[in-house]
């Protein structure tokens, strides 16, 4: 029925949909290596419409939910759902608790209308549905929005399938600060340099990145606008400038400067003006991070003789110690709800991602690797992405906050490091 030319167009759209940007070099590949304890069995029926492109969209949704480690995909066969007549008994027999399906149709304006519905198989009822209109370049993000809808409806928390991650790729003689979708697709390079780049930090509204660049043979903090690619220097004082952390209102950065001796904590306006000292010590104070309510700054200090995590009010004053177990606790990052803190705990030569419940002070090691660094919470607080080593090279990994779901993201023939998970975009 379809002319050969149309099939070709659909096929290339499907490639775009499935692979993200096919021209992206250094593509991040994701694999899942651990799953949740009670995965929700869900059937995602083939979306109706032109077969190639609908199947591509269906695949993205299935992969999203499968890779979350929280869903078990039930085989759905080949046929799209007949909305008016759901055979709940059949789906129940196949083991599904939930069922989703929809269709994709080209509109007159050369765009696509995607509709879908989500059903509760046990209760034999409709849970909800959505319709989206988008251009062909947005079909992959439409699939992610469908995944987010399903995830949130069934699990009661927002999904992260439409979020992005920033990270640094190091290949021979080259460093790139890249931003990709949370599943690793659509990688784009924000900065390419012959010198190292470390400590990328997303602004709260997700439009800017702060980072440390060594392009001038010393560490300098930049603030970079992602939409335009323009950037400015936020801190280049005499000595080293590093560890930028955004205040929750997006107006200030906590930074580490050596201009007055040692490595000490300062606050500065995003445009680089208004530098004020936050704390004073004769030790190393570094890795500042704001609490989500903007009241506290958690940081790493060796003022007690070994690197531990402390906190101080943003207005300054008394410093309180937070970690007490072990001789090396660094890299504090607060969860979005402010109730827990992920960090890196060192034990001899082994460095692992750990999680502390701030109310009870209970801690848990989340990984069984040995060279973990740079943990970062997903904006729904469910997952923690971090850098580690596997097969002799730097990779990214993610673990759920209960330690069960495990994912790995790697780039061929390069080291990946310094991940930072971006915020929800309103």
């Amino acid at each position, binding site marked *: 029925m379809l002319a050969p030319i149309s099939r070709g167009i659909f096929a290339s759209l499907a490639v775009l949909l499935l692979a993200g940007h096919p021209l992206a070099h250094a593509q991040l590949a994701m694999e899942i290596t651990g799953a949740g304890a009670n995965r929700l069995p869900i059937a995602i029926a083939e979306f109706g419409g032109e077969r190639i492109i609908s199947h591509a969209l269906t695949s993205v949704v299935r992969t999203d939910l499968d890779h979350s480690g929280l869903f078990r995909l039930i085989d759905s066969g080949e046929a799209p759902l007949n909305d008016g007549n759901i055979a709940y008994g059949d789906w129940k027999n196949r083991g599904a608790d939930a069922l989703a399906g929809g269709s994709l149709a080209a509109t007159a304006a050369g765009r696509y209308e995607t509709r879908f519905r989500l059903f509760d198989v046990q209760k034999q009822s409709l849970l909800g549905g959505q319709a989206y209109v988008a251009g062909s370049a947005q079909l992959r993000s439409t699939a992610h929005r469908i995944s987010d809808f399903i995830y949130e409806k069934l699990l009661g928390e927002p999904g992260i399938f439409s979020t992005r991650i920033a990270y640094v790729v190091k290949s021979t003689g080259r460093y790139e600060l890249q931003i990709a979708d949370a599943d690793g697709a659509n990688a784009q390079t924000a900065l390419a340099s012959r010198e*190292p780049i*470390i*400590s990328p930090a997303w602004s709260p509204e997700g439009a800017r990145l702060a980072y440390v660049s*060594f392009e*001038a*043979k*010393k*560490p*300098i903090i930049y603030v970079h606008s992602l939409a335009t690619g323009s950037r*400015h*220097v*936020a*801190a*280049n*004082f*005499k*000595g*080293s400038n*590093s*560890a930028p952390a955004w205040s929750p209102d997006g107006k200030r950065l906590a930074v*580490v400067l*050596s201009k007055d*001796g*040692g*490595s000490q904590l300062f606050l*500065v306006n995003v*445009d*680089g*003006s208004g*530098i004020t000292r936050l704390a004073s010590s004769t030790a*190393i104070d*570094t*890795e500042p991070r704001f609490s989500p309510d903007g009241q506290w700054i958690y940081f*790493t200090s060796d003022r007690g003789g070994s*690197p531990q995590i402390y906190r101080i009010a943003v207005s300054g004053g008394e410093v309180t110690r937070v970690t007490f177990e072990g001789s*090396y606790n*660094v*890299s504090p990052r607060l969860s979005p709800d402010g109730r827990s803190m992920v960090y*890196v705990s*060192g034990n001899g*030569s082994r*460095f692992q991602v750990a999680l502390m419940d701030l109310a009870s002070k209970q801690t848990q090691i989340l990984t069984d690797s040995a060279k973990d*660094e*740079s943990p970062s919470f997903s904006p729904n607080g469910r997952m923690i992405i971090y850098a580690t080593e596997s097969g002799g090279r730097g990779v990214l990994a993610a673990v759920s906050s209960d330690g069960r779901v495990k994912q790995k993201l790697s780039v061929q023939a390069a080291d990946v490091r*310094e991940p930072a998970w971006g915020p929800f975009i309103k």
Partner: protein
Amino acid sequence: MRSLFFVAAASLILAACGSQPAAPEQPAAGVEDRTPKVKVETPAVTQVTTDSGSLTGLAALKDPKSILSKRSVFFDYDQYVIKAEFRPLIEAHARFLVANAKMKMLIQGNADERGSREYNLALGQKRADAVKKNLTLLGGKEGQIESVSLGEEKPRNPGHDEAAWAENRRGDMLYSGEY
């Protein structure tokens, strides 16, 4: 003997008229100007050249026979004092800075790879600061020297054993034009 006398006299004269005010600090939000500005004054009254053979000459910086061509100070694990074996090196560079007051130095501190990148940046900073402090105690001017850190980011030895780590616990002294 005569030439030695002239060399000594020239050193004294160079040192005496060498002081220049330090360059003003760049404004907070601006980018520091890093263009090398090298100019060595040759006083009219002596015949000393600034070629190799003089302990204070520019060419000595690159002469493998001169201690000034050596630029690295190595540190023990968790230690930030300058070991005795490096004192002659520090003293030689301090004398060079005193004699060439318009020369600028960048000290880059480094750390081995174990642990957090930002904490390692701070450890490298301690090493660079230790070298700078020793140089200024011996006469180098604050305005001539900047101490920064590369942390674990540019290891000289990419290995993962104690020998590699020892080689990376290091401060490097670079002069204008070399960075």
